[in-house]
């Protein structure tokens, strides 16, 4: 059965960016939010340590220092005009979140409390600064809850457990809506809109060890890619240094912000050798590489692939109040009390710097020249503005999603007010239904879980923290074979109701399409910058590679174009911490 709906603005995804966008879009247009989960299940809720803004509540701080740190952290690949907007607007948007009721921790005088975080400094790199506004170590949970609460207060219309499967463009290339699969009934719904905002989050499930939820399968960017929209800077994916060994569950950088120390098997504070100034609070790419190098040098704990994160000297009070959730993860999953014993950690796939290219108003770009897709917006992790460049600083994901979620929501509402309904294409739900039917009826030889596990280990080993041409090429070749295999699977659940079996198969296909683009972008970039670390091209090469990658899929082949980086404030320099 096919259902149709008409909303001026359609938001896909209900994490921090989607909810912030929905709040603003709904104030100027009839708005619906579609999510494949319930909004409060979104992955924003797992962000822990804090949200950065130069409030200066505990010591002098300035937005331009935050801008500098973000640009330096990005290894000079971020667009500096966009970073400047983000860091300037961060301050007001934090106050706005507080006004919405967000329960920030407080200073003794009652202001929003702030703590140090990796790569955040005062006076252009001089020393760590307290900039991360926090609510214990569940800041993301508080942001997600607060924004959802506000959406309820403002009567935003939600379609929970609606999985978007297709993007509808008009014949002249405007965004006109989406096709969604209602999980409970298995029915297809066509949503006709004037403005469309993708806020579907990341795709960390491409890798074996990840902090990301099972649901982070890159559906938004994959659907965009299928419609000829480019994906920007996909070779840059952040590995967070401190995931729980083997599980990948995140231990917040706030542990190191509060004074926690990384140690190798000798008990040595090895970050002193890699980042003499900021030590354990250097950028995430720097710390993750250091851990890999320690492990390679046989300095992992017991010769294994992990090191220790030591918080035992911080005292029980700090561990149990400021780092409560991280402490609880260790107790639940490892039986370890971090106030007494160090935590076993290894880098974990965490955050996509790349994604759907947008300008600072969230408008999606359809090519490397910056031409936009009218009516199409993206915000949050799914988008690449680019404010994170080659490596994102801790806390800046939350800043990104509230600042650019808000901007995209406002811009979408204005667009909806100023424009008429664009006509839907001749076919809307038909291709999606044909695809679903084909998958249901096909009796294939492969198992989704097997293919997914192979992709994850392939990407972990070859397109992870360190990369070589040979490794990436082998991964790319195999990913292309796996894409074929993923067309030859058997969906075991043949029912209509709550068929998560077929959705997992579609999610795998999405991940494989993104894995191909990630590997192809990484293979082409013959330099090391931020999270993209090539052992066969160890240095940053500003002369040839101070560029954004735009990858499209044309006639079944990945095609790469390049666009210049906006350098408006800080000229690229060598990056040391």
């Amino acid at each position, binding site marked *: 059965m096919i259902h149709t709906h008409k909303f001026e603005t359609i938001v896909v995804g209900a994490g921090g960016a989607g909810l912030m966008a929905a709040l603003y879009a709904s104030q100027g247009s009839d708005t619906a939010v579609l999510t494949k989960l319930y909004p*409060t*299940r979104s992955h924003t809720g797992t962000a822990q340590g804090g949200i950065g803004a130069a409030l200066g509540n505990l010591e002098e701080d300035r937005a331009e220092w935050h801008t500098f740190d973000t640009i330096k952290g990005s290894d000079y690949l971020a667009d500096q005009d966009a970073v400047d907007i983000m860091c300037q607007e961060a301050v007001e948007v934090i106050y706005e979140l507080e006004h919405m*009721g967000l329960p*920030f921790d407080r200073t003794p005088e009652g202001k929003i409390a702030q703590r140090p975080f990796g790569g955040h400094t005062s006076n252009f790199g001089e020393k760590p600064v307290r900039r991360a506004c926090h609510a214990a170590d569940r800041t993301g949970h508080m942001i997600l809850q607060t924004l959802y609460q506000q959406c309820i207060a403002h009567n935003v219309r939600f379609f929970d457990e609606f999985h978007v499967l297709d993007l509808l463009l008009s014949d002249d290339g405007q965004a006109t809506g989406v096709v969604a699969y209602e999980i409970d009934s298995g029915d297809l719904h066509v949503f006709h809109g004037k403005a469309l905002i993708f806020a579907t989050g990341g795709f960390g499930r491409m890798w074996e060890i990840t902090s990301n*939820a099972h649901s982070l399968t890159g559906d938004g960017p994959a659907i965009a890619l299928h419609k000829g929209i480019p994906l920007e800077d996909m070779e840059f994916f952040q590995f967070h240094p401190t995931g729980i060994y083997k*599980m990948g*569950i995140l231990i917040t950088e706030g542990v190191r912000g509060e004074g926690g120390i990384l140690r190798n098997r000798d008990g040595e504070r090895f970050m002193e050798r890699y980042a003499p100034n900021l030590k354990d609070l250097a950028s995430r790419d720097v710390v993750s590489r250091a851990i890999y190098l320690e492990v390679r040098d046989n300095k992992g704990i017991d010769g294994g692939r992990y090191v220790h994160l030591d918080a035992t000297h911080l005292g029980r009070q700090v561990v149990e109040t400021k780092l409560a959730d991280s402490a609880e993860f260790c107790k639940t999953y490892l039986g370890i009390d971090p106030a007494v014993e160090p935590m076993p950690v290894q880098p974990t796939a965490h955050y996509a710097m790349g994604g759907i290219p947008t300008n600072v108003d969230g408008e999606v770009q359809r090519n490397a020249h910056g031409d936009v897709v009218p009516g199409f917006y993206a915000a949050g992790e799914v988008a690449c503005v680019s404010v994170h460049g080659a490596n994102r600083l801790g806390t800046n994901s939350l800043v990104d999603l509230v600042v650019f979620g808000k901007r995209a929501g406002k811009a979408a509402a204005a667009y909806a007010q100023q424009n008429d309904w664009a006509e839907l294409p001749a076919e809307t739900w038909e291709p999606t239904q044909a695809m679903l039917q084909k998958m249901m009826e096909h009796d294939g030889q492969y*198992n989704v879980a097997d293919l997914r596990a192979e992709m994850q280990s392939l990407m972990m080993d070859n397109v992870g923290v360190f990369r070589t041409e040979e490794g990436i090429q082998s991964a790319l070749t195999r990913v292309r074979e796996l894409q074929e295999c993923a067309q030859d699977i058997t969906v075991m*659940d043949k029912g209509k*109701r709550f068929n998560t079996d077929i959705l997992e198969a579609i999610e795998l296909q999405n991940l494989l399409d993104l894995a191909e683009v990630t590997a192809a972008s990484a293979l082409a970039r013959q330099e090391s910058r931020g999270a993209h670390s090539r052992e066969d091209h160890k240095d940053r090469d500003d002369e040839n590679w101070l560029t954004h990658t735009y990858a499209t899929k044309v006639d079944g082949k990945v095609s790469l174009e390049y666009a210049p980086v906006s350098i408006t404030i800080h000229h690229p320099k060598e990056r040391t911490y």
Partner: protein
Amino acid sequence: MRIQMRIRRFNPETDSKPWWGEYWVDVEGSDRVLDALHQVKWYQDGTLTLRRSCAHGICGSDAMVINGRNALACKVLMQDVGDVCQVEPLRTMPLIKDLVVDMEPFFAKYRAVLPYLINDQLPASGERYQSQEARERYDDTTKCILCAACTTSCPSFWANEDYIGPAAIVQAHRFIFDDRDTAADLRLRVLNDVDGVWRCRTVFNCVQACPREIDVTRAIGEVKLALINGLDD
């Protein structure tokens, strides 16, 4: 180790009533019940249906009844389940399929307590100030992830599905005791209803069920006291 999973199954398209499915899984003691359920779904029977997302106890998707007790499948380790791990959907909620229940009645109760900060007075610039003590007053109830483990463990709720339930009271508590909020009276009026806070018989099941270790019964008690004695200013 090899463990038997007994899973309550129900497919609305083919079954007239629920039945027990039995499966064997090979797991490590440190694996989660969620990992065992995935092993069944991914390698034995793809029709097994459950909700899950973050897999580490934050998103609240995978609350279910494990060996008789409400818990998140991603927070119970296989070393703690014994030789047989019995898994059922949350009680009392309308059943959709296998371990998936209809959450809408639960969220309707959540919305009934006006779960958002109400205060029209904004400072001219910057943040509202709040003392550390005032912030601490409602800290415990900010942890709620709306997983429904507490409400569906409550005998008062089993007996009367109109009872607003512990989760909604926890959410109300989070605002009633936030000194920035100005609408405690409105929420207390909702909770003073015949199906409100007085249906709580302090059984403490909710405290045992809460995966976030919220002292739920205490929060409910504080709301009851506020109804009797009024709120301290």
